[in-house]
């Protein structure tokens, strides 16, 4: 029986394992005569695939689909009428069912068949989806995942699925459990068609590694060939052939390198489901925003970040975000805001998890460290708040008093930090007590191609990541001078003073005369790195170096350039740290400190557009930025600033004049952001403890600074006034009739009013409000219905702007779904 069915499945393409198996078979068999077989390679690569390899394929594919599906499920739950989501989930259980019959996995087959039946009934309209059914389907999907993992681990399959299957039944009684499936009816055209379109193959990372290393060998061989040819005859035909070979090799190398990259989406797709489950378990409401899912990262890196990220997000939902009641009491929105984002910053990828919860109570953390015996009272007293915050990374310390089912069970931030540091990354905290916490994971872009500048010191060569190098100047050029100040050296480049680090001295390499300065930008500040010479720029594949090499703190990785001589990649920030260079504190750091400053609040003194001097609490300022005037528009009834790909409200108290650039303070609580235009930032001051009360909304108080009365602006009022223009714009789903009227006429109006409009939801998105035409296709019952004619009975006339906007606003306000 097995034999016959296997033949059928392989030819019909209805089951997903055989196509992959065929592809794997075809490759090595075709090139059998060219590739010499490695004697240690015991299994002939073109041998027919055994059953357990098909099983491995099945497990891998199921795992992958489940990951991709996580977002779909949540979206479907939010809107059970969403046909696309329903279809995706249906396809999954259907495919699982098909493969199970073939692989003889009765447990999985029974589960997937039951789910398929239930979903099929929803699809043909004989059942309506409700919460009970959604939960039952989710439970089955989870169970399929669990069983798959058990099969993979070779564990016995425990537990019973009867309850899960019973929950799927329409009348939810155990008697109506679906009968066993007839194996001949397993291949349906839907899944076959969907799979045939896919042109992807799953490869083992080892194979990619071999390709990569073969590629490097090829480059080295090409270089050697080029050297040999150049020393001999100059036959133009040979030269041309070599040129062509070089170009092809370069192209190939690019392509091979790209095979290792994957979008962070692979990491983020599971986040919506996880947040939903965690929040539901704790009785909290969380609004999740995911940003930057298309940033690319090395595949392996993605796998390694997965666990730490899950831990951090769970922590944020569990420890950070308060219960709805607590949030009401703290005058926050009832739904906690959680922002998960990824971006590339120089040669690093930054993944940030920001919540607007309670932040970390540093004093309490310190007290707990003392209670746990990790620190002495006296020791604690001598620590700065920043150092105390770092206690969160101590093993055996949790900021929470009670252990919950979600987190706080021993595996803590110490493990997260250790894991990230093992990748050559770091974890940074930005604590806003009472207002939230941002945890940023920085991981290097290792294993990817890096654009570098090669510098020479003595006989040694090192690579510098190009993004870190601001500019290169020769020491002899005009406008560059070096001065000895005490035992330090200071470089002055066109009037700008920079600390100077001599690479030769720091690395204790016998160097020549410093011939060039590379101005290195780090997060904390810039410095000048003196090197003998700047040799070349090169695109390099950087790999992590051995722990003993990384332990020096000087290097970010190692690489094998085309010369065939290994080279180390310097770590700009690490060099500064090792050389003991101290930078003036960046504003961001100040914010951090200011939150906890004891004697008085620190604030930024600036000159307003009207020429008056004012103050803004430093803690509220995210950044001071110079922006082009062309980024500012008066649109949708207020001034708005386009920055970092977003639109934020801009407050301008006075006339900004006609200058092409203006300076703005970016005021943010981590979720909502407002820009405040100023004329000139002056200095950072510590406010006296006593402030005279202000009697206008935008003034929090009046401080006496050197005899001058200066108004302190109320950042809270600024943010409150920003209203609808928050960073996270509510999502409007335009469920139009396909005529495009909504997109053409409605979308600009709504976007101007601060909403984000889509005609189709992306994975994991939940609309705050749905708009539909009353005679259009059926949508969610809570949709705002628009009528074509004035005075229609059900809904709002589609050109009644005021009523329309009011209806949308009220739906959003009550978190309408």
């Amino acid at each position, binding site marked *: 029986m097995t034999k016959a069915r296997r033949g059928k499945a392989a030819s019909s393409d209805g089951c997903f394992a055989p196509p992959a198996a065929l592809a794997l078979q075809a490759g090595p068999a075709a090139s059998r005569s060219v590739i010499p077989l490695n004697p240690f390679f015991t299994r002939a690569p073109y041998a027919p695939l055994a059953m357990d390899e098909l099983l491995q394929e099945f497990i891998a594919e199921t795992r992958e689909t489940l990951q991709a599906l996580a977002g779909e499920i949540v979206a479907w739950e939010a809107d059970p009428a969403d046909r696309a989501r329903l279809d995706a989930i249906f396809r999954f259980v259907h495919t699982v069912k098909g493969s199970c019959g073939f692989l003889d996995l009765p447990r999985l087959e029974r589960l997937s068949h039951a789910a398929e039946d239930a979903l099929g009934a929803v699809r043909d309209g004989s059942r309506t989806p409700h919460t009970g059914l959604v939960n039952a389907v989710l439970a089955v999907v989870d169970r399929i995942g669990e069983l798959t993992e058990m099969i993979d681990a070779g564990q016995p399959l425990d537990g019973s699925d009867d309850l899960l299957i019973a929950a799927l039944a329409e009348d939810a009684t155990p008697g109506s459990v679906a009968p066993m499936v007839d194996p001949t009816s397993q291949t349906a055209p839907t899944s076959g068609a969907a799979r045939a379109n896919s042109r992807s193959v799953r490869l083992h990372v080892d194979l990619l590694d071999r390709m990569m290393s073969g590629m490097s060998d090829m480059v080295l061989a090409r270089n050697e060939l080029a050297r040999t040819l150049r020393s001999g005859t100059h036959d133009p035909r040979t030269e041309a052939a070599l040129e062509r070979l070089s170009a092809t090799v370069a192209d190939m190398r690019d392509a091979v390198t790209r095979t290792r990259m994957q979008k962070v989406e692979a990491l983020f797709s599971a986040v919506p489901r996880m947040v939903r489950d965690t929040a539901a378990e704790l009785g909290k409401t969380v609004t999740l925003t995911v940003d930057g899912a298309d940033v690319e990262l090395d595949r392996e890196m993605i796998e390694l970040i997965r666990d730490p990220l899950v831990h951090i997000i769970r922590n944020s939902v569990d420890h950070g975000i308060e219960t709805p009641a607590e949030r009401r009491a703290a005058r926050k929105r009832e739904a906690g805001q959680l922002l998960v984002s990824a971006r590339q910053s120089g040669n690093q990828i930054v993944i940030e998890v920001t919540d607007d919860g309670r932040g970390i109570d540093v004093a309490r953390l310190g007290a707990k460290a003392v209670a746990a015996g990790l620190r002495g009272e006296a020791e604690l007293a001598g620590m700065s708040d920043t150092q105390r915050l770092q206690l969160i990374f101590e093993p055996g310390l949790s900021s929470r008093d009670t252990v919950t089912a979600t987190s706080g069970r021993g595996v803590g931030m110490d493990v997260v930090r250790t894991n990230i540091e093992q990748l050559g990354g770091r974890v940074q905290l930005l604590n806003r007590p009472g207002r939230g916490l941002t945890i940023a994971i920085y991981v290097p872009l290792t294993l990817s191609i890096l654009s570098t500048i090669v510098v020479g010191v003595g006989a*040694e060569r090192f690579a510098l990541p190009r993004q870190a190098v601001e500019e290169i100047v020769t020491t002899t050029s005009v406008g560059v001078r070096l001065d000895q100040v005490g035992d330090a050296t200071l470089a002055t480049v066109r009037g700008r003073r920079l600390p100077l680090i001599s690479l030769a001295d720091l690395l204790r390499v016998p160097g020549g005369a410093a011939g060039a300065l590379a101005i290195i930008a780090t997060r904390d500040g810039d410095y000048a790195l003196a090197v003998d010479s700047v040799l070349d720029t090169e695109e390099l594949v950087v790999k992590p170096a051995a722990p003993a090499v990384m332990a020096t703190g000087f290097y970010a990785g190692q690489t094998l350039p085309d010369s065939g*001589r290994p080279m180390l990649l310097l770590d700009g920030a690490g060099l500064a740290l090792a050389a003991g260079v101290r930078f003036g504190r960046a504003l961001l750091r100040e914010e951090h400190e200011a939150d906890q400053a004891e004697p008085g609040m620190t604030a930024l003194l600036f000159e307003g557009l009207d020429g008056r001097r004012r103050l803004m609490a430093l803690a509220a300022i995210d950044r001071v930025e110079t922006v082009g005037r062309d980024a500012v528009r008066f649109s949708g009834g207020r001034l708005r600033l386009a920055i970092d790909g977003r639109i934020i409200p801009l407050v301008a108290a006075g006339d900004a004049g006609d200058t092409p650039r203006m300076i703005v303070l970016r005021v943010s609580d981590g979720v909502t952001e407002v820009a405040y235009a100023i004329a000139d930032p002056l200095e950072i001051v510590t406010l006296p403890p006593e402030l005279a009360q202000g009697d206008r909304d935008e003034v929090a108080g009046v401080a006496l600074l050197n005899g001058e009365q200066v108004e302190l602006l109320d950042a809270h009022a600024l943010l409150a006034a920003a209203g609808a223009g928050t960073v996270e714009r509510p999502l409007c789903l335009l469920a139009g009739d396909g005529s495009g009227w909504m997109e053409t006429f409605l979308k600009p109006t709504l976007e101007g009013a601060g909403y984000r409009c889509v005609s189709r939801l992306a994975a994991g998105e939940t609309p705050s409000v749905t708009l539909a035409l009353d005679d259009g296709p059926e949508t969610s019952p809570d949709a705002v219905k628009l009528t074509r004619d004035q005075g229609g009975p059900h809904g709002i006339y589609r050109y009644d702007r005021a009523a329309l906007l009011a209806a949308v606003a009220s739906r959003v306000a009550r978190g309408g779904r």
Partner: protein
Amino acid sequence: MMELFLIAHVAGRAIAIDGAQVDSVVDLGEVVPVPGAERAVRGLAALRSRVVTVIDTGVALGKSPMPADARRAVITRIDGHHYALLVDALEDVAPFVRQPVEGGIALTGGWAEAAVGLVEREGEPVLALDLARLVPGVTTSEILAA
């Protein structure tokens, strides 16, 4: 049980290396120094298209450094990184029975840390070393996990 061991010479002694730890045996090309790294790290070398970290086995054992022109090395892979451990000379690969290090042998320093057993070659006892314990920066917990 007989296991395969590679017999090599380091710091004037014969040592036995578990065959499972040996990736290959090579003569290295140029070794590029790693400024700032501890003394046991001789530098980096290219092995075909791969970069290996070269370990001065003499220093790692707490003895005097190997000669500057030492090039013969045993390649091993620990925790995803490739290392080349320099050796003075290599003999053969042969099966031996691994015996525990007897209490009566007073090993000190690097020898004590790296020794994982004894093998007997034609009546001569040879210390079996764990290469992972000679590589700086690899912690004991990682060794246990591996």
